[in-house]
C-alpha cells in the first residue's frame, strides 16, 4: 500500500454522468432531425451543417487559445451542439459566409464573451439565428422546397412555409378565406406530411417525428425534464384553442418543437427550479403565439426564447423551490 492516504471531504462517490456525456446525448438526440434534414434538403443541408459546426468549434478554439489563453474547452462538445442547433435553424440554401457569420456571433458574442459554457445569458444558437434573421432578412426567409432540391445548393426552387401562408391568409380577411382553407389551397401540407417533415422550412425543424424521437431520448436519459417542453407545447395549444384555431398544424410546424425540446431546455439559459421552468415555458408559449398571430414575423419561437432567456435570472430569483418543512400546515 502507498502510505499516503488521500484526505477529502464527503461524498466519496460520484455520478458517472459528465458534461461531455450530456452534450453527446444531445447530439445523439439530434441525429434523427439531422438525418431528416439531409433526406429532405440533401447537399444544401450538408454544406450548412458542416459550415456551422466547423465555424462554432473553430471560433471557440481560437478564442480560448488567443484571447482567454486557457485550456481548450472544445472537448466538451458544447460548441458542436451549438453548431448543429444553429444549422438546424437555418434554411438549407443559406450562403456559406452567412452561416459562418452566424457561428462566429453565436460562439464569440453570445457564449465566450460572457465567460463560456454555463455563464452565457442567451442561448448561443438562437442568438446566432436571430442575429442572422435581422441582418439578412431576405436570405433567412427564403425556404427551399424539400426533396426537389436534394442535389442543389444554388438556384433552388423555393416556397413559403405554412406559418407564413397562414399569416397571409389571416391578414387577408376581405377574401373571406379561412385560415385552414388558405393553408390547404396554397401550400397543401397534410398533418401527416408535417409530422414527417415534407414541407418548406428551416432544415431541422420540418420533421416533427424526428424531433419527438430526440425529445423522448433526452427524457429517457434524464438529460432534460419534462417541465419546459410540456409547458411550452401545452400553453401554445391552449392559446390556439382559446383563439378558436385548430392547434395541430401550428404545433407541428415552424420551429416550435425544435425550440421547445432542444433550445428552450438549454441548461445555462433556463430556470433552475421546476416552478420557474413551468413559468418560463408558459411565457415562451404565449409570446410565440402572440408573435405568430399579431407580430410582424410569421414565426416567433426564437424571439420568445431569447426574451425569456433574459428573464431567467429574475425567474430564478423569485420562483425558488419550496423548502423542506415549508409546506402549508393544514
Amino acid at each position: 500500500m502507498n502510505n499516503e492516504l488521500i484526505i477529502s471531504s464527503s461524498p466519496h462517490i460520484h455520478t458517472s454522468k459528465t458534461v461531455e456525456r450530456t452534450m453527446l446525448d444531445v447530439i445523439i438526440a439530434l441525429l434523427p432531425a439531422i438525418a431528416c434534414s439531409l433526406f429532405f434538403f440533401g447537399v444544401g443541408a450538408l454544406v450548412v451543417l458542416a459550415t456551422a459546426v466547423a465555424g462554432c468549434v473553430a471560433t471557440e478554439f481560437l478564442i480560448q487559445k488567443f484571447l482567454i489563453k486557457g485550456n481548450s474547452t472544445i472537448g466538451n462538445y458544447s460548441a458542436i451542439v451549438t453548431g448543429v442547433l444553429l444549422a438546424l435553424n437555418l434554411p438549407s440554401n443559406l450562403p456559406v459566409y452567412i452561416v459562418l457569420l452566424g457561428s462566429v456571433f453565436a460562439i464569440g458574442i453570445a457564449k465566450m464573451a460572457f465567460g463560456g459554457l454555463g455563464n452565457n445569458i442567451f442561448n448561443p444558437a438562437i442568438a446566432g439565428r436571430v442575429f442572422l434573421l435581422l441582418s439578412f432578412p431576405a436570405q433567412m426567409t427564403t425556404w427551399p422546397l424539400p426533396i426537389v432540391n436534394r442535389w442543389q445548393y444554388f438556384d433552388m426552387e423555393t416556397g413559403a412555409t405554412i406559418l407564413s401562408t397562414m399569416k397571409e391568409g389571416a391578414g387577408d380577411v376581405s377574401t373571406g378565406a379561412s385560415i385552414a382553407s388558405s393553408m390547404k389551397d396554397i401550400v397543401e401540407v397534410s398533418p401527416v406530411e408535417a409530422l414527417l417533415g415534407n414541407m418548406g422550412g428551416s432544415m431541422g425543424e420540418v420533421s416533427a417525428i424526428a424531433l419527438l424521437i430526440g425529445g423522448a431520448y433526452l427524457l429517457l436519459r434524464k438529460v432534460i425534464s419534462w417541465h419546459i417542453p410540456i409547458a411550452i407545447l401545452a400553453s401554445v395549444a391552449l392559446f390556439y384553442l382559446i383563439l378558436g384555431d385548430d392547434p395541430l398544424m401550428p404545433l407541428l410546424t415552424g420551429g416550435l418543437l425544435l425550440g421547445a425540446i432542444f433550445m428552450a431546455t438549454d441548461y445555462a439559459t433556463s430556470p433552475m427550479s421546476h416552478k420557474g421552468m413551468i413559468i418560463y415555458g408558459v411565457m415562451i408559449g404565449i409570446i410565440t403565439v402572440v408573435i405568430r398571430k399579431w407580430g410582424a414575423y410569421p414565426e416567433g419561437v426564437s424571439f420568445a426564447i431569447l426574451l425569456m432567456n433574459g428573464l431567467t435570472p429574475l425567474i430564478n430569483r423569485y420562483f425558488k423551490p419550496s423548502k423542506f418543512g415549508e409546506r402549508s400546515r393544514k
Partner: protein
Amino acid sequence: MLKTFRKGGIHPPENKLSALSKITDIPQSKEYVVSLSQHIGAPAQCCVEKGEHIAKYQLIGKSAGFVSANIHSPVSGTVRKIDKFKNAFGFETTSVFITPDGQNDEERHPLTSEVTAKLSSKEIIGIIDNAGIVGLGGATFPTKVKLMPPDNMPVDTLLINGAECEPYLTNDQRLMEECPEEIIEGVKLLMRAINVEKAYIAIESNKPEAIKALEKAAAHATGIKITPLKVKYPQGGEKQLIDAVLNRQVPSGGLPASVGVIVQNVATAYAVKQAVIDGTPLTERVITVTGPDLPHPGNYRVPIGTPISDIIEAAGGLPENTQKVVIGGPMMGKAASNLNATANKGMSGILIVPKRYAMRQKAENCVRCASCVSACPMGLEPYLIARLSELKDYKRLEEERVMDCIECGSCSYVCISHRPLLDYIRIGKNKTGAIIKSRKTNNK
C-alpha cells in the same frame, strides 16, 4: 407504492458487498485504546488509574454533564496509561490504554424479567444513561438526551431507523437479520421510556430478509409496525425518515420532537435491550468493513478501542492499491488519516477505497443543469449557496437557509461538472452559523 420522502434524493449504486456475511467476532488485539470522547458533548471524566486492574464492562469514564456519556472497558486487563491519543482524523483525545489479560472477567448486573417488567420510564432512561448508550447511526448523540424532549413537545411516536441508505454499509442490515428479537425487545423498552403506544421500524426495500425477520419478531408485539421504504438516499436522515414514514415535516431548525417523533437507530435499540435486560453497557458495535477490492468484505462485532488496522486485518488486510480509507459510508463518511487509531461507538463502517476511485475529478464551469436543485432533499439551491459561500455573502446565505443543509452530499454526487458544492456549502454554513450564534449572544 412504497413510501419515501417527497423532496429530492438520489439513488447511487448500492454496492452492498457484505450483505451476506454473518456478523463475526474478531481476534483479540494486543492493546485497546478507549477514547473518553466518543460522543457529541463533553468528554467523559476518567475514573480509573494507571496500573489499575479493571474488569470487562467496568466504568472507566464518567459522563461529565447532561450532554455526555459514560465509557466502559471493552475487556478485562490492566490500565497501561492514560494519555492523549490521535483519532482516525488526526485529532487528539484523552484515552485509556488497556492491556487485555485475556480472562474477560465481567462486571455486569443483569436484571430478572420481573424487575424489568416493572421498570418506570425514568428508571429505563437511567439504565440507558449508565450504560453509555449513544446514537449508533453515526451521530453519537447521547441517547438519554434524545429520550427526554422538552416538555412543550408531546411525543406520540417512536421511529426506528433501519433505512441504512448509505451505499456499501450492511451493519444494520445484518443486525436486523440476525438479532430481530433483541431489537424488538429494545424497541419495546424505548416505547416505555418515552411513553408512546406506536413505533415504526423503517427499512428500505433492498433488505427483504431484514423486513421479514423483524415482521416475524414483531408479530406478537402491539403497536410496532415494520414500514418498508423505497430505496432512496438520504432516507436515513432524521427529517427525511419522518417525512417518509409519517408524512410529517420537521420545520426548519426544529427538533423531531416538535412533530411528536423521536428517532432511534436499530443498533441503538439493540444496545438498549442489552443494557436493560442483560446488564451489559455499550462496549462493542457492529462495523462493516468493505471496499471494491477488499478480499473479504464483512461485518464484524468490534469492541471499542480496537485498532482500525486490526479490524481491516480481519477482513483480509489492506489491498495494495488502497489510497483512501473512509470511516462511515461513502456519502457522509470521513476520510481517515491515521489507521493506528481505534474504533469508537460511532464507527458504522470502514470503506477501503482503491486508487482508481480515490481522486476527485477536475471541476468545470457550472452549466446550470439544475441537477443539484432537483437532488437536494431540503429544497435548497446548492449551486447558489455554494456560489454565495465563495463570495462570502453570509447575509444572503442565511436568507437562502444554508443552515437547513444536512450535508448529505447529494448535490456534489449529481454534479456533472464535478464541482465541490458541499465543500463550499460547509464553509459557508460554518461561518453563517458562527455569525448567527454571536448575534444571539450579543442580543442577550
